[in-house]
């Protein structure tokens, strides 16, 4: 079922792209990653918006957590009330991400299968290909792209560094500083740990996969930039309090979808225009 509905169409599309894009598997990976990112754009957008909305509620949430630390029932009620008032669904950033996971796994599997680095994997590839001549006539794919042999790990550390740096930038753009020092230290650790881990993976796995991570990160950065500027990359963006809230005397309290105040400068300007 998984193979028929998800993996095989993606794998064959990848090989068709290879055929069309001058028999370059590197370009095919770049093109398919862009296509998949565009196809999942509405989900990414929803996820990013929900994330931002949740981030803006953090100061208030921390306040409530401190206030009702000893009364869990009250704490839950107050938190739900806050979410309701702000029109934010706490799971709103989770489900678009969950929907995307199988797509990314399929893309990962497609790249690994198409590379067919060993005789066994080449043999196994035959069971996933459509009978189209455009697909069968180009297999096995050429692994060379720039300085890389896409079926083997990059012998240099260039790709690993690029993967790590782009992942850090992408994460940093969306990671809001936390008021709680423990939370802030955890955020900092995550910001470093994930890029470091993926950098290590890039040294370990076929460079075709590392190329996919790199392209995916770059597209993620571009998307986030157009949706919210540089976000938290260069520190917290300037906080603007909506006039409506000011009138209510909310003193920077951020409630309601329309009054998210820590929007990065660029998107705020865009929204207004």
């Amino acid at each position, binding site marked *: 079922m998984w193979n028929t509905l998800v993996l095989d169409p993606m794998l064959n599309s990848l090989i068709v792209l290879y055929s069309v894009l001058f028999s370059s598997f590197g370009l095919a990976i770049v093109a398919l990653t862009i296509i998949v990112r565009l196809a999942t754009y509405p989900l990414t957008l929803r996820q990013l918006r929900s994330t931002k909305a949740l981030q803006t509620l953090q100061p208030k949430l921390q306040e409530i957590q401190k206030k009702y630390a000893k009364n869990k029932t009250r704490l839950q009620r107050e938190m739900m009330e806050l979410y309701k008032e702000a029109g934010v669904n706490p799971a709103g950033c989770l489900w678009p*991400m969950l929907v995307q*996971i199988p797509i990314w796994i399929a893309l990962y599997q497609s790249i690994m299968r198409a590379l067919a680095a060993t005789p066994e994997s080449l043999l196994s590839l035959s069971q996933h290909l459509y009978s189209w001549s455009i697909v069968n006539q180009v297999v096995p794919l050429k692994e060379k792209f720039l300085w890389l042999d896409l079926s083997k790990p990059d012998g240099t550390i260039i790709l690993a560094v690029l993967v790590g740096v782009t992942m850090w930038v992408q*994460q940093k753009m969306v990671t809001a500083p936390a008021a709680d020092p423990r939370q802030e230290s955890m955020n900092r650790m995550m910001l470093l740990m994930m890029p470091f881990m993926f950098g290590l993976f890039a040294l370990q796995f076929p460079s075709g996969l590392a190329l996919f991570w790199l392209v995916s990160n770059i597209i993620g950065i571009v998307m986030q930039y157009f949706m919210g500027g540089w976000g938290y990359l260069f520190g917290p963006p300037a906080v603007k309090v909506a006039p409506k809230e000011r009138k209510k005397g909310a003193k920077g309290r951020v409630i309601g979808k329309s009054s998210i105040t820590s929007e990065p400068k660029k998107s705020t300007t865009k929204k207004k225009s």
Partner: protein
Amino acid sequence: MLPTNFLFLLSLSLLLIASGCAAPASGGWSGIAFHGNTIYVASVDGKVLALNSAARNQEALFPASREWVFTPRALALPTGFGCAPPPPPSIYGTPAVAGDLVYFGTYLGKVYAVNSSARMEKRDFPAGVKGEWEYPRQVDKSIGSIVGQVVVANNSVYVGSSNGVYALDAKSGDLKWHFKTGGKAWTTPEAKGGVVYVGDFDGKLYALSAGEGKELWGFQAPAAVASSATVFGDMVIFGCFDRHLYAVTNGKERWKFRGGNWFWAKPIVSDDIVYAGNLDRNIYALKVETGEKLWQFEADSPIASSPILMDDFLMMACEAGKIYIVSVTTGKLVKTVSLGSPVLAPLYGEEGVVYVHAKNRNLYAVKIPGGEIVWKFSLAVKEK
């Protein structure tokens, strides 16, 4: 608050850790070479074994008389950083035997000639006085991945690799010539009448002079050549990734036959009939002169291993681990033997017994036509 894509990244990381930091899976699908009651086979964990067929029949302890095991050393080739150990020295091709020497090539790109008596005496490799050698001789050098079998003919060893076709001196292991193809020559060369025929991933079937390695003629197929070639008279028959089986004479197409998937296994010819297994689960019996289909037999799973003929029976194995005994005259099934493990290695028949190397590391001896398993032996033995 944690970054929102944290969960996604974490799950992906765990997936990668689970799949990446384990030791690479061992590989290989060597068939059997039979020489003077000794069976030579390479195991999926990269060892070459000599087995005494009588001792195996009596289920004697290994190693019995004339039995040995040899493990080629792993190469310190660059494989990137991280936690993966060096790749195992997988052996895909069936060993070739000439006199006391056993020849084979590894996926890491080395060709070996090992001497049976030196291996029984457990001498250090290479025992030069016994005629042993490896090519290339430098420890960290490779001629590119070898997937097909090495072929011994005209005092030469012919081998296809990811870097083209090589001819080595069978006695010394010195390079005679190297022919650079356009892609990878992962098929077994066929040496006949002073010509070496080899298919390549560049879609070309090459006919090279056995002495000098000059291209005599070539046939450009629309896709990569998938199977090793079989020579019958002046005709060369081979499978291609465009799902066709081709018959070619002097670089000109005689006929082609379309299957449902790749013709991966080397076809065989007998009594003017070509038997060719296909990954679409079928084995096709075709007239050798015209390519006209006589019959086809459908197995339970793809056929990747080369079939064999014995008396009036055609024996073939499918990936699901079933051995089929089929009548060559009618194409009807006579007997099925289930081994319960995938079979990718070519079959070998000798004196009414078919030897099957299955993926579960067992070697089976199956009696024909009854289908009884006479003995089985686990190739997962350690070199002492």
